[in-house]
């Protein structure tokens, strides 16, 4: 991508960074233990495109040795923000936080090209922020899909008339429903009939909280997910019912803001954060369930958007909210379900044999450090064999909208993933599904296996789990 820009302000990069609470950069001791974990470094083989190199550039900006020039910004924009480097780092460098703050400074203090501006305005400030626009878009795209055009482009010679990246993007299209999930269930408390006596949910912190017979949980529905892949939310709802939860889907919730944070638009992200707080806070929930790894990670880190002494604070957006209470309620559906092994065991599951692969979404394994739970859930299913996928903790190149902004690099990273999948299939030819718990990854890997004609289905874990319930159960 060409990011033509110039610095807007006369203020030096050093001053901008000093205001951004950037001291955590000092945790990086330049040891390099993160290098091998970085998907973009492994493609580019260049120090400045490694986590250590990128941190060194950020540090250079913070120290005043570098200024916000295009050549400094480019390697930072080539980072897919998968945060695998965070898992690898022994010094606890919060890479994601530092990168996101840096992107915020870049976003606010540089002037982007016209194309960038239009794209940003349309997507970040427009579409993702508005439920009604999202529904309309979903509806239109659903019609587009029913015209058969995407199939025509991907499956026939017609595709040859278009650039490769455009053809690939057809594969990426989510299954739009044209309807909003949150509006469908808005504000009902959906209670389950099957509920047996269950142990009260004690909250992610482990401390005993409201002792009621049923945990009451909120469901986070997201932006794109709210209007597409309806099966994911519906299956989540089904499973939550089966373990006896009361579920609330606040109708006034909005996009989590991750896409904004990744591109540096922290202002819009803050606005969304506060709206979500207002949507969930008053409902006395024991937990807020997410089923998109990227959203979960973002919701757990809202406090970082409102740091204490920042330039943001100067502009009067200093937050008085104690985000801790909100954040500790956020929990991925898979982690949540695995707290109830006994209840899950009691359900009637199908017993036919099936073999599946699991791919760990970066924002689940690296950002939220959840990995064992989904594997265990799958492994515990009667009849199901989970076979290993090499580098399952490795990024697929999706990265929010990274695959649209850096199609080539994203494609190279995806290629490595599809190669691993191919390899796994050679040793386990009877594998039927690959399972992954983040919509972005789902679209990306689906596009990868489709464009390479790999014979495999891809499903969200909750959809797979719900599908393994005997018919009368679901």
């Amino acid at each position, binding site marked *: 991508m060409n990011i033509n820009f110039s610095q807007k302000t006369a203020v030096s990069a050093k001053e901008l960074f000093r205001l951004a609470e950037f001291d955590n950069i*000092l*945790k990086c*001791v*330049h*040891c*390099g*233990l*993160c*290098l*091998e974990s970085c998907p973009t470094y492994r493609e580019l*083989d*260049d*120090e*400045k495109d490694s986590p*250590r*190199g990128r941190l*060194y*550039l950020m540090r*250079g900006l913070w*120290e005043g*040795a*570098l200024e916000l*020039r295009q*050549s*400094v910004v480019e*390697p930072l924009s080539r980072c897919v923000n998968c945060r695998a480097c965070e898992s*690898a*780092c*022994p*010094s*606890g460098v919060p890479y994601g936080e530092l990168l996101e703050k840096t992107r915020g400074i870049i976003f606010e203090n540089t002037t982007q090209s016209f194309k960038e501006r239009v794209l940003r305005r349309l997507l970040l400030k427009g579409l993702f922020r508005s439920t009604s626009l999202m529904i309309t878009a979903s509806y239109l795209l659903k019609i587009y899909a029913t015209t058969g055009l995407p199939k025509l482009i991907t499956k026939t010679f017609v595709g040859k008339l278009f650039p490769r990246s455009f053809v690939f993007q057809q594969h990426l299209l989510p299954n739009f429903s044209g309807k909003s999930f949150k509006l469908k269930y808005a504000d009902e408390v959906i209670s389950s009939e099957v509920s047996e006596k269950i142990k009260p949910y004690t909250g992610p912190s482990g401390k005993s909280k409201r002792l009621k017979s049923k945990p009451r949980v909120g469901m986070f529905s997201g932006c794109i997910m709210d209007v597409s892949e309806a099966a994911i939310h519906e299956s989540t709802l089904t499973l939550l019912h089966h373990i006896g939860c009361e579920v609330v889907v606040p109708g006034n919730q909005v996009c989590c803001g991750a896409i904004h944070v990744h591109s540096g638009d922290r202002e819009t992200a803050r606005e969304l954060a506060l709206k979500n707080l207002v949507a969930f806070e008053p409902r006395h929930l024991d937990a807020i369930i997410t089923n998109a790894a990227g959203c979960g990670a973002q919701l757990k880190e809202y406090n970082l958007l409102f740091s204490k002494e920042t330039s943001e604070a100067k502009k009067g957006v200093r937050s008085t909210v104690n985000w801790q209470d909100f954040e500790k309620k956020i929990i991925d559906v898979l982690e949540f379900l695995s707290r109830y092994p006994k209840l899950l065991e009691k359900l009637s599951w199908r017993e036919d044999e099936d073999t599946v692969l699991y791919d760990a979404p970066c924002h689940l394994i690296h950002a939220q450090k959840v990995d064992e739970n989904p594997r265990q859930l799958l492994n515990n299913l009667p009849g199901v064999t989970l076979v290993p996928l090499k580098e399952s903790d490795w990024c697929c190149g999706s990265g929010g909208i990274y695959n649209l902004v850096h199609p080539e690099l994203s494609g190279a990273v995806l290629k490595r993933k599809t190669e691993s999948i191919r390899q796994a299939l050679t040793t386990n030819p009877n594998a039927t599904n690959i399972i992954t718990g983040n919509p972005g990854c789902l679209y990306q890997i689906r596009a990868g296996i489709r464009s390479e004609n790999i014979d495999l289905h891809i499903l969200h874990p909750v959809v797979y789990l719900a599908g393994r319930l005997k018919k009368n159960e679901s």
Partner: protein
Amino acid sequence: MSFESNIREELAKILGKEWVKDDSVTLYTYRCDGLTLYTAPPMGVVFPGAVQELVSVVKLLHKHKISFIARGAGTGLSGGAVPQDESVIIEMARFKEVHEVDWINRTITVDPGVINLRITEDVQSQGYHYAPDPSSQKACTIGGNVAENSGGPHTLKYGVTVNHVLGVEMVLPDGELIKLGGKHLGMPGPDLLGLMIGSEGTFGIITKIICRLTPNPEKAVTMLGIYKSVHDACESVSSIIRHGIIPAAMEMLDKIVISAVEKALKPGFPLDAEAVLIVELDGLADGLDAEAEIVEKLLKESGATTVNRARDEVERDKIWRARKEAFGAIGQISPSYYVQDGVIPRSKLPEVLNEISAIGKKHGLTVANVFHAGDGNLHPLILYDYENPEEVEKSHKIGEEILSSCIRHGGTLSGEHGIGIEKAEWMKDLYPGNSLDNMQNVRTFFNPENLLNPGKLFPQPGRCAESKSGTPPRNATVLDKSKMVASKSGIAV
């Protein structure tokens, strides 16, 4: 600095334009390795993707008398990969192919850019591993390991890199491609391969490596001895060795390190202990338990209050993770630390450790210890506050005094992190008389014009040696104090 345009063009002809870089941002990120204390930008960075390309690049640079240096993962801790005299960096990251696994000869042939741990990952399903296990093994390259003759905790029983590399292919500084060694052991004549290993990238650029594969031990027993004094723990080390037992590894952590790893990783080490000693035995399952009994008895006799045995792989991993990530964990208790690397005869352990603690006290800073006890390879960690210039100054003084103490007790300057630029000036203290000249003559034989990795390993003529580890290398930018402190000093285990 950047390439002169004719050089850039010629390089681009060999490699393609995209693999020749001399923009200021690239140079900035290549100005230091694992040691961030001294920085010096290269003239440019080239990224060959094949041996033939590398040979052509070297010939070209040699023709123009431009100095150059190979770089692996840049995890070195002595500035080995920091370019001096504006050398061109030859980045080896694109050489990452595993060529051949030969199960009969138990060898694996790899490119120099292959990561150490990758080899073990590739062969472990067949019951083998690559024995040298530096704590940086998930990042450092085999090429860098050969250059630095790297070791790790299991070096005690299995030896260092030189014991596990059977042959190399390398490019001499004039572009000649040669082979040393092969898949077999032992070559008649002087051991040129041995000379090459540990020459810190000053003899030639390695392009292929034949590594030896080691069968996994049938069983391993990991024990943790807990002590009321560091002295007792040192006694245990001597006692085990004296009884003719060679454990796979013997690693010591003192009280300060224990408190740090407990904060970061919670391996379950007792906080009131003055030291813990990790002892790992491995080998045939038969007899191992009996040996473990003996070791347990010896540990107790020499002062261990308790000896715990890891019950399963999970517990074993916990102990090792705490050991391998101990340096990172120090971040939990101190804003910065400076790691030294010195070796002493095992018998001197208690004495030197006492001295180190006294040196720290004298200057008013804490020195923590976590090290390869079985090899007498110390890694004192000097804790200081990067925002306090006085403490920074002191940390360097302490580092120097510790090194002097190691030499005085018949030890040496570096166990595994190398000499690089950090300790080049110290070589004079270690090798009085003409040994140093003789060594330099050997280097001159391989590298007559000193075009390959200049300014490393040997003292530079005409440089003042009043403050050794603080002496800025030629052409290096020494960061000003406040930045220097902020840079910490690299970590290592």
